């Protein structure tokens, strides 16, 4: 087996194994029940997050882009 063919196998394996490949198992929109649980949220304290974001947005004179509450339901 010559060199290009030998190189092709690792490339093919890499293409299949990277996140570029849709053939990998992915969480479908209807399978996000576990991700939607509050425990999956980045922050465990929504009040503290709200206050921190309020201070941040006031200081930065900007608003939005902070995402929404809860976990990763991905609804709507």
């Amino acid at each position, binding site marked *: 087996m010559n060199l290009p063919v030998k190189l*092709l196998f690792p490339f093919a394996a890499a293409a299949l194994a990277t996140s570029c490949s849709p053939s990998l198992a992915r969480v479908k*929109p209807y*399978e996000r029940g576990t991700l939607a649980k509050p425990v999956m949220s980045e922050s465990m304290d929504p009040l503290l997050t709200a206050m921190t974001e309020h201070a941040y947005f006031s200081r930065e004179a900007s608003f939005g882009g902070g995402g929404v509450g809860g976990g990763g*339901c991905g609804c709507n």
Partner: protein
Amino acid sequence: MKTLLSLIAVTLCTALTASAEPAKAGQSMPKLASLLPGASVPATAGKVVLVDFWASWCGPCKASFPVLNKLHETYASKGLVVIGVGVDEDAAKYQAFAGKMGAKFPLVHDSAHKAAAFFGPATMPTSYLVDRKGVIRHVHSGFRGAKTEAEYISEIEALLAQ
């Protein structure tokens, strides 16, 4: 060498495009009873059907139930069948949510995700409006209150008139 290369290329292309295509407008809907084995699916032959995918963990789904109830009450006598397909993995959560929402239209549990795998809803909720011939005519991704309700009404009235 060339044969080997083309073989690898074909394998890669097949693997990369293997994911199932979501259901689109213009496509025929298969019999729901075949997608939902064990569930009591209402008769849909010759009716306009609204298939709505929902889950207990989805906020907008909860907001859509009063609107779906209203659509059912207004148009069921004129030939509309609303079917709510719950995709919860946990049967207890499906039951609890279904009981709490007071749906007046039939609800079915897609526990094996067979129907969801066919339709491939892009987000939760997603609904499919099917005409009297069984062809998917409109797909609604997400629920946006009055805007979605107005779209439902105009589309349902147009399909019922056909």
